[in-house]
């Protein structure tokens, strides 16, 4: 037997109570694991790069910027390369099945954020073969069941064609993987030249420029310089890191992360209250035994550790089960829903488990530690 065995055996004295506690802890951490993976993955912010800058219109993300701005941005000595994107949103087959297309220059895209997207020269070569070729992200391809060589038709919500139609036909030239599981790959890449030539309106404009600063150049300072450059032009700009860009993008609808954090936080606070309450009673029932342990020479600190050990054990088992289930769920449904259970999510969850385990044991442990032996012995 070890000291930890003693804490464990104490926890199992009321098996039903302990199991119920562990179940509620497991459920709380399952929810936490899923929401944290969602925030981490669906926003793509986890895999988003902090070095890349996105230049969009200060008037709003849907306002186009003239292509002419590209050379002015490129003229800044801090800029290594400038790429550009025109985004299309549409659906395939049914309106619910929304897909996004980024129209870009494949070679430029490769130099600007080829690494983040997992682009290879072979992929760039493949899309270059004819004007209607597209590259599809791994997550999107898996969700739709698409394969290379297949033809797909996207009905655009926002970009009509010159010929009056809204159906854009493409042929899949390849599938890009994204740098890591956390990279957003639920979209496809088309050729800007083709889209620009065939669209009815706003020709020679882009939705965003993507800038890679030269090595050693501060992205923050460069962003400020670019915005100053266009401050008094017809199209003022707003330049942000890609991460900020993606986060701000979601924030336009609602601050999802804040809402999720509030809900999960409230769940944890409730959980804490419940466990503290149960543990205070559980330990009070054992006042006599704690007096006995003290009589045998267990110091106050050991009594403290014993009870904290017990709550930590309950939280570790319950939290471990919850997180394992969350991990399974993200592996099973991750690519489609964009859930990413990263090491950072795990580390944060373990930190929360530790804090809650210690916090919920603190009050009962403190009570037990302070009760004088003589008083404890008179409880029986």
């Amino acid at each position: 037997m070890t000291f930890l065995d003693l804490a464990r055996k104490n926890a199992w004295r009321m098996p039903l109570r302990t199991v119920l506690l562990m179940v509620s802890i497991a459920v709380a951490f399952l929810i936490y694991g899923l929401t944290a993976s969602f925030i981490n993955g669906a926003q793509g912010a986890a895999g988003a790069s902090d070095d890349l800058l996105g230049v969009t219109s200060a008037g709003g993300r849907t306002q186009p910027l003239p292509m002419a701005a590209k050379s002015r941005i490129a003229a800044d000595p801090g800029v290594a390369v400038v790429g550009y994107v025109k985004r299309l949103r549409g659906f395939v087959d049914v309106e619910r099945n929304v897909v996004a297309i980024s129209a870009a220059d494949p070679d430029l895209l490769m130099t600007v954020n080829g690494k983040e997207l997992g682009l290879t020269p072979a992929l760039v070569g493949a899309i270059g073969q004819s004007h209607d070729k597209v590259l599809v992200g791994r997550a999107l391809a898996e969700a739709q069941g698409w394969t290379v060589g297949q033809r797909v038709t996207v009905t655009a919500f926002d970009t009509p064609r010159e010929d009056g139609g809204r159906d854009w036909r493409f042929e899949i030239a390849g599938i890009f993987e994204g740098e890591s599981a956390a990279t957003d790959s639920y979209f496809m890449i088309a050729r800007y030249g083709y889209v620009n030539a065939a669209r009815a309106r706003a020709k020679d404009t882009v939705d965003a420029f993507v800038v890679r600063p030269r090595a050693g150049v501060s992205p923050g300072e460069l962003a400020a310089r670019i915005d100053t450059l266009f401050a008094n032009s017809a199209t003022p700009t707003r330049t942000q890191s890609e991460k900020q860009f993606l986060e701000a993008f979601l924030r336009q609808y609602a601050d999802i992360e804040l809402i999720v954090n509030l809900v999960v936080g409230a769940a944890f606070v409730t959980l804490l209250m419940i466990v503290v309450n149960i543990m205070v009673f559980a330990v009070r029932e054992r006042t006599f035994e704690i007096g006995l342990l003290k009589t045998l020479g267990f110091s106050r600190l050991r009594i403290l550790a014993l009870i904290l050990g017990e709550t930590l054990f309950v939280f570790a088992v319950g939290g471990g089960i919850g997180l394992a289930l969350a991990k399974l769920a993200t592996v099973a449904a991750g690519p489609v829903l964009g859930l990413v259970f990263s090491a950072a999510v795990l580390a944060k969850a373990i930190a929360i488990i530790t804090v809650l385990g210690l916090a919920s044991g603190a009050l009962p442990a403190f009570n037990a530690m302070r009760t004088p032996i003589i008083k404890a012995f008179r409880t029986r």
Partner: protein
Amino acid sequence: MIQDIAPYIALIGIRKAYRIGGEMMPIFSGLDLTIPRGDFVAVMGPSGSGKSTLLNMLAGIDRPDAGTLSIGTSRLDQMGEAARSAWRAHNMGIVFQFYNLLPMLNAAENVELPLLLKPLSRKERRLRVERVLDLVGLSGWEKQYPAMMSGGQQQRIGIARAIVSDPGLLLCDEPTGDLDRKSADEVLDMLRFLNRELEKTIVMVTHDPQAALYARRTLHLDKGDFVEEKRAA
């Protein structure tokens, strides 16, 4: 038997009072007592005379209000809770009337409990537990839980737990108070063996005159003082 000349336990001018309903009720007002090393003392006296209070002070779990209480080289009356806690872990074993074994631990684990406070390996702890269980005649009962054992067996586990750390002092508060005659005699034989062969100093509170016969001497506590002291044969 060899007994040291210098007293092992010395109580000088011990005062102790409890507050009962706003009034201070004195239990001891200047109690003196010396016990040499290797003694086996039975303490008798009417209910409420302060026997348990005396034993609790010797165990370092209660403190005198005034007076000197020394055991070996330790001045228990001057030590704080942390120091007394460490002192208890190494110097004193205690046996209770109602055994006070932990129900979720089996016999071996109950006995092992005090060893968790010592810098011993798992294997050393197991060997020590085996040795004392053998001593109290319960080897083979390691895996039994207290609820499955008779009172006499539980008390022998209690004694094993009290001596597993090899303390010099053994304190017993009515160790046979809950046992039938036969089990009581087995337990008392064991205490006598521990005193005679292993040279433990024993202070035993008891209501049972027959139990007191196992001791070397009996002290009678009444109205906060020893009224009579007699040597057993």
